[in-house]
């Protein structure tokens, strides 16, 4: 009997210590203590933290990928008079939109309006862009048919997992300014994302700086986003995109159902690509077909869910131009403001808001 007692005591001691570290460091932000920044460098995590901040009371929430990230809250607030948080994150997919809104509905006051930037490639299989939602446990649960008991069980078992413990140790090291692994993919991704979302200073020049002429040790990676790189990246994104993912379509429809059930007004727009990029993608062949598919599908859903639908696939469709682009795949704040104006043409305060006609 002594053997069993010693065995159990040893195991419980080690597991208990692990659980305590995981609970208090809370690297995935799933337990009450929030003393440290979560381990995840996922920008979805950043968007979620912004939404769940105690002071955040968003009445209007912007969802979408990095292509919607330049819809500035001050512009939207100017047009609508509604407090806005832009929860767009790079590589967003409908499962992410759905999970974010489901989280808001459950934990905060549901917003009155959603603006959703729909990327054509968001209906490509999610794995292609990396499963960001599954890396954020607070959101992951909305994608699974689990009940409260199962969620609590998962949270509990996570306490005694090596994966969480190693991230907890990284968080502790980061808090102590100890860089355990400076080349860790998460850290690199984090830096890249922060740089990419940094306020625009001289975007047009940045796009055109040839790689070879870049100053040494340049930290801002916008210069790296050359047109060739964007083209290559988007060709890869659309490569093999032969049909819309029914799974992502289901999540998107779930988002619309949730919005309808909660009386949340939804405005959808197809996000903009530079005509030069579209020209290249047209040659590849997948983009025009999937663009038509997404358009047709949204048009079919519109009567059922009553959302406002705008096709901003090219800048001319909202009165934008081909110069005000951050790079070939992202419009900048000026074109974004034009897109906002196109969505709220009758806003009483439009005359005082950017951009001036």
């Amino acid at each position, binding site marked *: 009997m002594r053997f*069993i007692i010693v*065995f159990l005591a040893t195991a419980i001691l080690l597991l208990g210590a692990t659980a305590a570290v995981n609970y208090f460091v809370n690297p995935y932000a799933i337990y009450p203590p929030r003393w440290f920044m979560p381990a995840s460098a996922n920008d979805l995590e950043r968007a979620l933290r912004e939404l769940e901040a105690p002071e955040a009371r968003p009445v209007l929430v912007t969802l979408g990928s990095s292509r919607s990230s330049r819809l500035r809250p001050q512009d939207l607030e100017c047009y609508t008079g509604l407090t806005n948080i832009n929860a767009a994150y790079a590589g967003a997919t409908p499962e992410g939109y759905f999970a974010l809104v489901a989280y808001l509905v459950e934990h905060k006051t549901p917003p009155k309006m959603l603006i959703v930037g729909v990327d054509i490639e968001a209906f490509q299989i999610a794995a292609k862009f990396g499963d960001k939602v599954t890396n954020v446990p607070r959101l992951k649960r909305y994608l*699974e048919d689990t009940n409260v008991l199962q969620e609590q069980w998962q949270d509990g078992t996570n306490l005694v997992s*090596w994966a969480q413990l190693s991230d907890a140790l990284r968080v502790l090291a980061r808090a102590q300014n100890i860089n355990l692994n400076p080349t860790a993919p998460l850290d690199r991704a984090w830096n890249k994302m922060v740089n990419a979302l940094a306020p625009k200073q001289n975007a047009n020049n940045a796009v055109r700086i040839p790689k070879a002429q870049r100053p040494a040790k340049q930290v801002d990676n916008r210069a790296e986003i050359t047109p060739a790189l964007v083209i290559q990246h988007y060709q890869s994104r659309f490569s093999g995109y032969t049909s819309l993912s029914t799974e992502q379509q289901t999540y998107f429809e779930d988002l619309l159902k949730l919005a309808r059930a909660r009386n949340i007004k939804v405005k959808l727009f197809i996000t903009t690509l530079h005509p030069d990029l579209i020209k290249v993608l047209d040659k590849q062949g997948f983009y025009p077909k999937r663009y038509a598919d997404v358009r047709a599908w949204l048009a079919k859903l519109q009567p059922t869910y009553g959302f406002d639908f705008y096709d901003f696939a090219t800048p001319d469709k909202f009165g934008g131009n081909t110069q005000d682009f951050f790079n070939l795949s992202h419009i900048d704040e000026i074109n974004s403001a034009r897109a906002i104006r196109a969505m709220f043409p009758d806003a009483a305060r439009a005359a005082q808001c950017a951009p001036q006609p």
Partner: protein
Amino acid sequence: MRAATLARMLFNSYEFIFLFLPIVLAVYWGLATRQRNWRLLWLTLASYYFYAFWNYQFLALIIASTLIDYWVGPKIYAAQNKRARQLWLSVSLLSNLGGLAFFKYYNFTAAQLNGFGAIFGLAHLAPVLNVALPIGISFTAFESLSYTIDLYRGQVKPARDFLALACFVSVFPRMIAGPIIRYAPFAPQLERDPRTRPHADDAMTGIYFFVVGLAKKVLVADIIAGYINPLLAGNAYLQLGLIGSWGVMLGYTFQLYFDFSGYSDMAVGLGKMLGLDLPRNFNSPYQAVSIIDFWRRWHMTLSSWLRDYLYIPLGGSRRGEFATLRNLMLTMALGGLWHGANWTFLIWGVYHGVWLVLNHQTAKLHLETTRLKFVLHPALTRATTFILVVFGWTLFRSETISMAWYLWRAMLGLHGVDWGALRALGYGFWAMLAIGFALSMFAPDTWDFKITPRARYAVALGLLGAVCVLMLGQRSPFLYFQF
């Protein structure tokens, strides 16, 4: 990915270790002080629940097959003549082998028929059905058959009641992937009052086997799997040359051993915790000095089942040399096919059959009395056996014959020497291979280490168990579950 969390009861899951097992043990030992029927009923229901976690629909299949065997058992035993006994036995054979044949081999046979028919423009001779393979069916079918065949032979008596038989067929520690148990040694254990056993010793041994088995699985097999699985998925193996193919196949060799023997150890440990003795399934198989020796050490309960219920009924070694070798080949081929409906398994069985035949023939040469006795040096025979086994696992792991062929050629250097694989596979991988090699070649088997109730062992097992629990985050089914 809108799906419920993978709701499968694996031994290496939090659900099993923190919920299922403690509850089952607590109630079982609580009932042990009461009546035998309550104890068996609880164990049977718990086992059914365990199975239902995998696929509740197939639970009906297990219960139906048990009911049939329970019904025909006394009839086989009481039949007055051989013909009547054979008749009743055929009902059991039909029920157990029929299920196995349908679920495991029907689609394979239909695909072969259609492939053959396609030559004559008849590609749809037999419909291919969308049926899943009930997990553990190969094991439960063999165990049920051992009961009715032993009844036919007059070696056992019919089950005392339905509970005894149901518990034998379903008892959860070995239900999914063995060890394959026999009714004769197992039934008396069910009738034995657990209070008559020294609980503390059983619990200690049970903990030891379970923790060591869990460590084999999560700390060795799963880690190696993480390295090699991507290289064996799809067509990725086509990039392997001499070094990569040997690395990957050695990795699989150790993964399979630590995975399956880990499961078997855990099953034995769980049995001990319930006061039941399950048979040994492994005896350091990679230390074998011949293929004959290998099959005495690898999946021992299957080997002995095939010997007793297939090889010996075919005539064994009693009808001359040719018949002996034929029976050996036939047994190994069917043993290969038992693992799965694929040509690769059949060829793997034949491959081992050929080596067994050669092994039997060379044994008759009595090389130890000749100048060639140096070839019988244990280091040489062990190395040769190991290499032959690794080549065999290539067939076993390959999804197609062409994949096996490619890997064989790569292992023989016919696809070049990929020096880059040394770095590409990573230092961690080679370190794991070294650990797997050392443990399987030089360490004593789990069964050979005698655990004693010392505090230091308890602390070591406690630490090892806790580390294993920390690594349970990734659910990884055991390899033999597919068979």
